[in-house]
């Protein structure tokens, strides 16, 4: 089973991203389950969403306590929640982070896939400067660090186009750019 935990903030689209990712794996012939952690989320407040991917239907429901990979939609979340909770040493973390910078304490312990998603989102006119929509951008970065079970890039981009309510091509293009530009730092 592949367990994915996504950390976002209300309004950033973590829940939509989890559904898109689940759908992409489904297109690859796998069984999937995606669900949000319900809360009193507000725009800006921390939220989480989970995806289970397996070769057979998932029986467990609820939170994934030991995820195989974490996706963090916003660097501010590092202050708000422990995104590494239950994550094995060296496991991948996909993180939206400013270009050229590295969160060293995380880099020492985990494999990081860093992407300046805010910048890419703004370039592709996804959201505004005050509130860029970066969920699909981060998914592009995710592709680079999770190999098993295989997920074809084109499958993901197609799932993105199908899964977003608007600006379908822009979202897919942004994800594509993120896939090209992601910086992967193996645990040192």
């Amino acid at each position, binding site marked *: 089973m592949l367990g994915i935990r996504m950390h976002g903030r*209300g*309004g950033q689209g973590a829940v939509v991203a989890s559904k898109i990712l689940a759908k992409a794996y489904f297109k690859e012939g796998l069984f999937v389950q995606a669900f949000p952690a319900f809360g*009193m989320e*507000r*725009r*800006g*407040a921390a939220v989480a969403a989970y995806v289970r991917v397996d070769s057979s239907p998932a029986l467990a429901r609820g939170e994934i306590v030991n995820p195989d990979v974490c996706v963090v939609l916003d660097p501010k979340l590092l202050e708000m929640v422990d995104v590494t909770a239950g994550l094995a040493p060296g496991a991948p973390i996909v993180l939206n982070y400013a270009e050229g910078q590295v969160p060293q304490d995380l880099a020492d312990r985990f494999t990081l896939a860093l992407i300046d998603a805010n910048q890419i989102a703004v370039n592709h006119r996804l959201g*505004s400067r*005050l*509130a860029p929509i970066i969920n699909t951008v981060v998914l592009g970065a995710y592709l680079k660090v999770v190999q098993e079970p295989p997920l074809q890039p084109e499958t993901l981009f197609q799932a993105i186009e199908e899964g977003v309510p608007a600006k379908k091509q822009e979202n897919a293009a942004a994800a594509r750019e993120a896939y090209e530009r992601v910086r992967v730092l193996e645990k040192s």
Partner: protein
Amino acid sequence: MNSKILKQELLAPGHMGCPGCGASLVMRYVLEVLGPKTMVVMPAGCWPTFVGLYPSTCLRVPVMSVPFATTAMAAAGVRASLNRQGKGETNVLAWAGDGGTFDIGLQALSGAAEKNTDIIYVCYDNEAYMNTGIQRSSATPPGCWTTTTPASAPKVEPKKNIVEIMAAHRIPYVATASVGYPRDLMDKVEKAKGLKGTRFLHILASCPTGWRHDTELTMEVARKAVQCRAFPLYEVWDGVRWSLTPMAAKTPVTDYLNMQGRFKAMSAPQREVFQNWVDEDWERLRGKCGDTQAA
């Protein structure tokens, strides 16, 4: 020496309202005037979900969070209790959104108003059920997108005229205000505070989340609504004396509609209908205000 522009500050930071929340601002302004001797009674809606995370609260006045339909009557109970305890000077502020006022709470509100219960009732109107994720209320304007009025099934009915309903109860004071004009808003709360009986304030509280505008535009959108007359500002005394609040020159409603994603799907003919609706209401309102001025 300079002193703070809002002296009471009965709203503590740290609340869970969305960034740019208009309803939070309205509360700041209303409590600035009413002061610490105020009891707030609020039903389900955005506010009670962000007023606190038990056992913490963001308001420095007592608050009762009550079931959705009950605002005005729970407030009446509070009023009766305070009167019985000789605390007639404590303000009782019934505080509900448009859903809690126009829809589910209307019966209790009418019940309280008919008895001229000594409360100040503020409806912070964000024109939909925002807390549950943007569903149509009877305060939603025509042509406006909500999750229950999608582009495939738009709302065609005009916004319910809650002010006329309340004025028909002949209560001492009914007024509209906008979060975009805090001074006017606070002046009207001051007027309401100086009266006894049921006082009703209908306050436009923009919602960046539900209206689909940038968070920084909260006050600007609420000003535009007033300027285009989609939300005119006026007062009604005793249900009979109507008076317009002086307003700047009229702007086209498209200025207002274009600022917000919730009106994006409106066609040109729908916009025209909207403009006509606004114009007709405005003329009717002017008539009422003019008649009383002549009298």
